[in-house]
């Protein structure tokens, strides 16, 4: 499969996306654009208490309102669900207890939305309020009432305590040790499209069909089967084109289940679309994480040991939390060689909307802490901040102390490129007062090695059907949420079969019609669907090449396909059109089609928690941020971002740049302004106006450099682009702010208020810092000692 760049005919070119025409003409049908005959509308009554027992629900007045067709409560949907096998803790509608303001309690179906809204006002819910647990400290200190009756103790959801190597010995070898505390505020995905689902129950077939704005149709399918108690094959989940996800549409949601249940009850199709405010409460966004990191280094900057503690405020439900907690500790070792590593973490339940996976799931928080601390370590040791990183960077073909296998690794090249492009050497330490420059490195997985629920099945499958017209149709369960997976699918099939990208017709994300893809999360789609597509295309090509070889009287090994022609590489005049070859093959073998699949190699670590972190490959990104800070107003203006990303191979360079620029944009929002904050148990700012995000005016210029390292495990050498480039932006800006003003903002986001406060402290002669004072006192259990890989044995 190894080919030189010039030999590819489709990939490596910045072809337009296959769905761009529809998206630019208003033809794309998102979930809320769908309307079925006799369709009605649903609305959901949310809890007004953060934590309360439900004593009584009276829906009788709502039921009598003209135009109301059906009302359901938790009693109608008593079976619990959740995205992970270990977090089956949600009800579609609260059963006996509400756990956050905004939690769905009652769902109503009515002829129109206005009537449904009016019906909600007629519902009487009697609550018995319970003490609300609203912060990490609360969760650790308040043992009763418990938000859930599972978890190790009180309001703790999960505890991790694990050692790799001789951590105490490692600190003993250090010439210098630092301990720092950081806080990363939670924030939310804010997709422009609100969640929406249309459900249609067919009573004669006893079959449910749902069209939903979801990133994970397969997991929605599983949750619906469980909660509705329907056989799998009696449920069809179609993921409509998703108007932005970023992880916010990765869980099965209440409104999806309620729409199905109401449709079964009333025998008509129903649509439920969330309001913007409801989307803020549905959340599943970035966990607020408090972090303590202790790192030991030799005097020339070599890391000897690291002890990392993270405290995650998980919100009211488990969601992806069992993975999130491990992700705050798993990838530290992938960027830098850490010979001895202790990771301890708590995920706590609080009476707030559940946190979950947001772009770069669980990793921007520790990345912020580590990259900030490396700058401090460099300063302590009077080393260059780049030099200390280069001293510790991992390289290709490396196994980390926690058993993660890195193949290609462009971190060194990315560093060189981004320093060169930004003119780092002429700027660092040489900029006028108020201006600063900062650097950071990060990494991300290209697909989680393990599926969310344990199984031996492929994680992605693609089917290809060749028509005698020469048309090729590819069927895949993958859902394009804007990242471009449809284009990746078409381009890979076209590349293998020697067709144009536009010759490949797609059927995607429909559980009745398409084979499984687990979903759009963990940057897995290009890697896994990509391999499945290549596998299927290679199988489809076989009989076509065989028939062509016979017709052309040449051996099959000499054939090559490109530009819709199959030809003899040694004598290109001896050729056949793809269409003719496909017809010959069909005449000889019958209909031409094939299925392909992909499953990552098994993980190599064998310890509790080793399921989070393994990936077929790791992307690497470096970022330089240049800032201009106003000491009067505290405003941080990011003047420019330079970012280099190790993409393995860019299947479509313009698409990759789009993912990188989008990641930079979202990272800047997180570092400068975005926060999911609560006041008096309510979301402080559940609107697009008050939840600050960057507009055209705040977005600085971005210079993107793609570094190609030809990943051996990647489809044609490709790695991920959609998530990794977000992470280095945040610490790069924070480091630049320190460089500009000599202040440490150890708490994300870096708002003008915090900058002014730190400047004031500086003026007073206090430590010029804003950030958490410490961590909650908590005695972690004795770390589990994991045997380290041979190369790390001492």
């Amino acid at each position, binding site marked *: 499969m190894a080919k030189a760049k010039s030999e590819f005919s489709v990939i490596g070119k910045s072809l337009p*996306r296959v769905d*761009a025409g529809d*998206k*630019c003409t208003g033809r794309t049908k998102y979930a809320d654009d769908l309307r079925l005959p006799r369709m009605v509308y649903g609305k959901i009554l949310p809890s007004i208490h953060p934590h309360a027992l439900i004593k009584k629900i009276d829906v009788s007045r709502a039921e009598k309102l003209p135009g109301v067709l059906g009302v359901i409560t938790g009693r109608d949907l008593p079976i619990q669900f959740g995205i992970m096998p270990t977090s089956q803790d949600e009800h579609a509608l609260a059963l006996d207890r509400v756990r956050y303001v905004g939690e769905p309690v009652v769902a109503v179906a009515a002829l129109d939305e206005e009537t449904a809204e009016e019906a909600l006002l007629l519902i009487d819910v009697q609550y018995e309020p319970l003490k609300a647990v609203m912060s990490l400290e609360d969760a650790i200190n308040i043992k009763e009432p418990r938000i859930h009756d599972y978890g190790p103790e009180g309001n703790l959801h999960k505890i991790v305590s694990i050692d790799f190597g001789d951590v105490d010995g490692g600190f003993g070898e250090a010439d210098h040790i630092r301990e720092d505390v950081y806080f990363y505020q939670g924030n939310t995905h804010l997709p422009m499209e609100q969640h929406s689902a249309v459900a249609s129950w067919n009573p004669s077939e006893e079959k449910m069909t749902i069209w939903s704005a979801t990133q994970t149709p397969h997991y929605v399918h599983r949750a619906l089967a469980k909660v509705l108690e329907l056989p799998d094959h009696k449920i069809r989940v179609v993921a409509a084109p998703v108007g932005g996800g970023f992880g916010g549409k990765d869980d099965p949601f209440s409104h999806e289940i309620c729409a199905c249940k109401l449709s079964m009850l009333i025998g008509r199709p129903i649509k439920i679309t969330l*309001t*913007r405010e409801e989307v803020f409460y549905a959340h599943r966004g970035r966990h607020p994480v408090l972090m303590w990191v202790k790192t030991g280094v030799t005097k020339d900057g070599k890391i000897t040991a690291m002890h990392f503690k993270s405290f995650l405020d998980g919100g009211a439900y488990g969601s992806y939390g069992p993975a999130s907690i491990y992700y705050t500790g798993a990838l530290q070792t992938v960027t830098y060689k850490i010979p001895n590593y202790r990771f301890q973490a708590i995920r706590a339940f609080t009476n707030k909307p559940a946190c979950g996976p947001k772009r770069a799931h669980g990793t921007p928080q520790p990345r912020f802490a580590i990259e900030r601390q490396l700058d401090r370590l460099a300063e302590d040791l009077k080393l260059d901040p780049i030099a200390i990183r280069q001293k510790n960077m991992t390289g290709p073909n490396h196994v980390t102390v926690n058993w993660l296998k890195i193949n290609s690794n462009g971190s060194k090249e990315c560093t060189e490129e981004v320093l060169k492009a930004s003119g780092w050497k002429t700027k660092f330490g040489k900029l006028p007062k108020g201006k600063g420059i900062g650097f950071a490195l990060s990494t991300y997985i290209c697909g989680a090695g393990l599926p969310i629920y344990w199984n031996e099945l492929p994680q992605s499958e693609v089917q290809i059907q060749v028509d005698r017209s020469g048309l090729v149709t590819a069927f895949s369960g993958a859902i394009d949420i804007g990242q471009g997976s449809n284009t990746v699918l078409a381009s890979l099939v076209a590349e293998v079969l020697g067709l144009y990208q536009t010759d490949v017709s797609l059927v995607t994300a429909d559980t009745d019609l398409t084979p499984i893809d687990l979903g759009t999360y963990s940057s897995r789609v290009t890697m896994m669907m990509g391999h499945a597509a290549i596998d299927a295309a290679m199988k489809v090509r076989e009989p076509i090449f065989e028939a062509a070889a016979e017709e052309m009287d040449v051996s099959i090994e000499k054939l090559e396909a490109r530009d819709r022609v199959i030809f003899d590489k040694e004598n290109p005049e001896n050729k056949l059109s793809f269409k003719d070859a496909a017809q010959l093959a069909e005449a000889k073998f019958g209909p031409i089609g094939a299925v392909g699949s992909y499953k990552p190699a098994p993980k190599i670590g064998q310890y509790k928690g080793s399921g989070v972190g393994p990936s077929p490959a790791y992307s690497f990104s470096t970022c330089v941020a240049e800032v201009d800070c106003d000491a009067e107003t505290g405003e941080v203006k990011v003047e420019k971002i330079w970012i280099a990303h190790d993409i393995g191979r860019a299947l479509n360079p313009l698409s990759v740049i789009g993912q990188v620029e989008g990641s*930079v944009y979202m990272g800047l929002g997180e570092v400068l302004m975005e926060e999911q904050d609560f006041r008096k148990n309510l979301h402080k700012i559940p*609107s697009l106006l008050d939840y600050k995000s960057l507009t055209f005016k705040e977005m600085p210029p971005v210079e993107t450099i793609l570094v190609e390292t030809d990943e051996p495990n990647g489809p044609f050498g490709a790695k991920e682009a959609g998530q990794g480039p977000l992470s280095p932006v945040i610490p790069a800006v924070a480091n630049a702010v320190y460089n500009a003003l000599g202040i440490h903002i150890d708490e994300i986001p870096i708002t003008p208020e915090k900058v002014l406060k730190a400047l004031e402290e500086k003026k007073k002669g206090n430590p010029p810092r804003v950030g958490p004072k410490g961590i909650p006192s908590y005695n972690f259990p004795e770390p589990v000692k994991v045997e380290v890989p041979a190369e790390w044995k001492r």
Partner: protein
Amino acid sequence: MFYTGAVGTAKTKGGLLESQKTLITLQINGERYEVAVTVNKTLLEILREDLDLTGTKHGCEVGECGTCTVLINDQPILSCLTLGVEIQGQKITTIEGLEQNGKLHPIQQAFIELQAAQCGYCTPGMLLSSKALLDENKNPSQDEIKEALSGNLCRCTGYWKIIEAVELTASRLGASKE
């Protein structure tokens, strides 16, 4: 809306608005539509629910994100804040009307070529705001583009590909007139 009112208190509208539907005439994309609406029905709702012109999207329905932008008399407005009854007889352009006789507007072509649309959800509003800018200003500077589009939020692209698409379109339109 749910978190401010007292739950359990009925505030019925008693079907009052339903009985007060008005027949209005709208000029959309060069076509005439007659539609019976209540006085409080927004243009966004009329387009999407009564006329099946679902190319116009919504992100907040309270005038904060620019997603529902359409053109009225060639000026960008937020259809979620505009009542149907107040715009009778005015020229309304939606995303469905940007393409003429199957031919894309140059701004659409540029968005496609430069991948200025990712999830595509903000794209109709972006395209219409961009068209309105280019109709008024044949050669906008980057600052003018940012100013004109700053009311339209996008969470995918980081905005630069959209700016580049507007610039490319301006240069093409300029070149075609020379």
